[in-house]
């Protein structure tokens, strides 16, 4: 993308040296717009798929966004969105506890997940030839989690401690990102 924005500049330098007329022509061109390829379709089961090729480096990003965030979870399910962000790494049909993370890291990739207002997201950045592996793994955990009482109890504790460490036991913890919506909003 940065390359795209540089191209018109390069033209300017190359042709600008030749003669005044050509330089003028180049200058009168429209400013480069940011454009990326977007291929969009929906599977029969409703999964929205967006593909955007960029071959500037031999890597691929897989991002899965679930339309459930911490302000739209059902009233009697407070905290579930964040709890699930953790449960998604606790094992699925074919991957044991923490094996998802190992799979990405041992293939030279990085990953993360986060819980936001309106969605929970998961992503992996891997060398391109591991794209199929990541699609398999993301599909495996969308298909079903291996939720045991032990995992659940463990992650309930982890999430609660995360809140203590990051919010409750920090000066200005939760200020203003978590506090302000509660004061400013009625919902």
């Amino acid at each position, binding site marked *: 993308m940065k390359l795209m924005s540089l191209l018109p500049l390069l033209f300017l330098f190359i042709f600008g040296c030749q003669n005044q007329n050509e330089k003028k022509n180049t200058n009168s061109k429209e400013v480069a717009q940011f454009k990326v390829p977007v291929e969009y379709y929906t599977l029969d089961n409703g999964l929205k798929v967006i593909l955007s090729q960029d071959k500037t480096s031999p890597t691929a990003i897989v991002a899965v966004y679930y339309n459930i965030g911490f302000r739209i979870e059902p009233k009697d399910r407070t905290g579930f969105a964040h709890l699930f962000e953790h449960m998604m790494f606790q094992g699925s049909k074919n991957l044991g506890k923490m094996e998802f993370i190992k799979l990405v890291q041992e293939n030279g990739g990085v990953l993360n997940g986060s819980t936001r207002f309106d969605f929970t997201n998961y992503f992996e950045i891997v060398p391109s030839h591991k794209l199929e592996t990541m699609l398999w793994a993301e599909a495996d955990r969308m298909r079903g989690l291996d939720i045991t009482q032990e995992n659940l109890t463990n992650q309930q504790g982890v999430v*609660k401690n995360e809140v203590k460490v990051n919010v409750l036991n*920090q000066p200005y913890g939760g200020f203003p990102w978590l506090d302000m919506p509660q004061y400013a909003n009625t919902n």
Partner: protein
Amino acid sequence: MDAANLEDVSSFFKTYYAPNNAALSIVGDFEMEETKAWIQKYFGDIPASDLPAKPDISEPKQTEEKTFVKDDALANKPAIALAYHMPQRNSPEYFAMGLLDQILVQGDNSLLAQKLEKEKGFTSNVSGGINYLGNMFNYQGPMLWMYDLTYDNDTSKEDILTAIDEVMNGLKDSIDQAMIDQAIIKIRSQLYDDIGGTFGLGRADLLCAFALFDNNPERINTLEDSFKEITPKVVKKTIDTYLIKTNRTVLTVNPLLAENDKTQS
């Protein structure tokens, strides 16, 4: 969350972690047809769920200014945050607020940074934006435009608010096309940073957000145009309608450690 049992967790998963409540974006170096075949192979037969209606989180119009104080047992100097309810997402006023965010708080040349950091020396950093947990694009529903800063115990809340008033009172008269053009340059620069950084992660993020919330990921390619359509008139109208005290909430942090000599230099 503590009360959650295995059955609750399993039903939450089946409902919300279903393909019809999700978006998958792939950005990078891949072969189109091969990748489509893999997606069909691995995701194609995951069953959809019956999604319940989303809860109504819409906000009524605020009619008077709200002020709150939060005691902070761990803070040693005061802080203040000011928030305004945002116009509806994707409306002309929403894009105008994107411009006003740039004009008021983004970067060293922003009016509030100039006033509170450079001119008054009240703080070393005014930070703010639309959606503290993302950016002005990746949310759905009500949102606040907000900024915050810490300041010294010698400075009063009134000093800060008076300085802010000096900026806000003159704002409408100072808006012209040149100011908007400058704001668009900053938006453009931030877009390149967001969309291009971390191997294209920001691109994957916007594509998923626009697919989930607008059913239109192509919006990624028209963002800049949406800002360019905003005239000074629309920006002024937005100031009159949204950047007013009746639409504002002021939250200050009361630092309980202010008098603690261990935290004072």
